[in-house]
């Protein structure tokens, strides 16, 4: 008698899909997306001026880099994100770890940071422009404000989750409080700090685009606003693609860095 098998349905509750099915599904959804887009643009359902076909957008994107020196705009945008993000981390990592370790430090800063966190960063744009003029400073400041308070809170929470027994082990081995923080708490929380940074870097890209659209003549966002003036929808869409690709690239890089720096985390059961 053959072994009876349960029939497999498409809607299986919490059963992992096979690799071919996963790949096919991923390709499928994108194919549908580009298919609908292409069809809409070519069939004349929509105004071709507002929705250029995908191939035009891709050739414009290529053109930007090859012919029109778009790379310098992209580089400016990347620099803005990285510089402001580095500044935010330089403040948030030590402060977040201190707040998560010492309730006395948390008692000072948490009531302050908790309030700032709920102020939308873009509401600072007018005043930042008045304070810092039109140079790089207001953009960096916006990105910094948008990221730093959340990053501090996330890092504080992760630090609080470092198990008490690890700290007590260090103390009973004779480690001083300073050594316990630098050699036990910090390395224990570092992988989670990286995860928090990865999440907040995505937010930094969001604020970058806001800053460049509202108050900049350089960078990807500014290019998109220029394109709007000349009804170049293909250029606007190219900008979106480039920003998306950059965000994705940085996220992947962070993922690789995480795996490279914390190999022991992979094997955790």
């Amino acid at each position, binding site marked *: 008698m053959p072994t009876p098998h349960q029939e497999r349905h498409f809607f299986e509750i919490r059963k992992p899909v096979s690799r071919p099915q996963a790949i096919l599904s991923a390709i499928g959804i994108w194919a549908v997306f580009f298919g609908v887009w292409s069809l809409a643009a070519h069939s004349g359902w929509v105004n071709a001026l507002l929705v250029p076909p995908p191939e035009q957008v891709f050739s414009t994107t290529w053109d930007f880099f090859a012919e029109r020196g778009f790379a310098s705009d992209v580089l400016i945008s990347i620099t803005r994100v990285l510089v402001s993000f580095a500044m935010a981390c330089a403040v948030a990592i030590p402060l977040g770890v201190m707040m998560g370790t010492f309730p006395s430090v948390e008692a000072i800063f948490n009531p302050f940071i908790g309030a700032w966190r709920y102020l939308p960063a873009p509401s600072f744009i007018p005043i930042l422009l008045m304070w810092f003029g039109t140079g790089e400073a207001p953009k960096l400041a916006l990105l910094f404000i948008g990221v730093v308070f959340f990053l501090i809170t996330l890092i504080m929470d992760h630090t609080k989750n470092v198990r008490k027994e690890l700290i007590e082990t260090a103390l009973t*081995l004779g*480690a001083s409080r300073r*050594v316990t923080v630098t*050699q036990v708490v910090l390395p224990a929380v570092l992988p989670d700090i990286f995860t928090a940074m990865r999440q907040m870097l995505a937010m930094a890209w969001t604020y970058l685009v806001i800053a460049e659209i509202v108050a900049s003549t350089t960078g990807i966002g500014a290019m998109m606003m220029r394109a709007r003036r000349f009804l170049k929808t293909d250029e606007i869409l190219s900008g979106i693609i480039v920003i998306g690709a950059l965000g994705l690239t940085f996220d992947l890089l962070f993922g690789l860095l995480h795996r490279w720096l914390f190999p*022991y985390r*992979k094997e955790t059961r």
Partner: protein
Amino acid sequence: MSEALLHLDGISKVFPVAGGKSVKAVDRVSFEVEENRICVLLGPSGCGKSTVLRMIAGLEDPSDGAVTLHGKPVVGPARDRGMVFQAYTSFDWLSVRRNVEFGMKVNGVPRTERRARAAHFIELVGLTKFADAYPSQLSGGMRQRVAIARTLANGPELLLMDEPFGALDAETRWHMQEMMIDIAWQENTTMVIVTHDIEEAIFLADKIIFLSSHPGRLKEVIVPEFKHGNRINDKEHIVQLPGYAEMEQKIMRLMREEGARE
């Protein structure tokens, strides 16, 4: 009998609870631990045995009474009282070797001496083959061995263990218990071990401090006389000794009386 290393003199611990009230977890407990002996703190849940151990470690301050080591009062955690916890405490970012070296490193032991001592204690707990592995690659029992080696390598006067084998499966637990007997022999270690496992207590103990619950009070000091001062590192052997079964029954009765009081 050898001279007492550790004295607990009427220690109590009161914890504040919600609503401005307080609860007495430990009530005037006194006992002593002799050098090179294994002392087991045993009792039902809620008897404050872990709190007593934490006060010896200096991780909690007694509300009343004093703990003295070599006649000097204990204030805060320090290198002379190493602690092994029930939860895994291996530092995941360090290899086994570096875990074992950690205490010596922060205490400024020179590198060559550190290496040699670490190798000795890794060997003692049977992890030489895994010296360069990371804790996440090890089983639960192996991780506890890392914790034991790390604490011993730091050269404490006293090894404190809080239900160290509680999270392990039965077979691993025997091996670990037998290993602890061997270590106590070879390294002349003084230990205070907290457990709620009667078999484990009888197997390991030179002396059992039995605590009653709510609040934790000293109920009885039990010396397993049937061992005649010998340590037996073989579980099958010890259960066959005359006197073992009686002692087990006696402690079970004590446990049951305590349970009935709740």
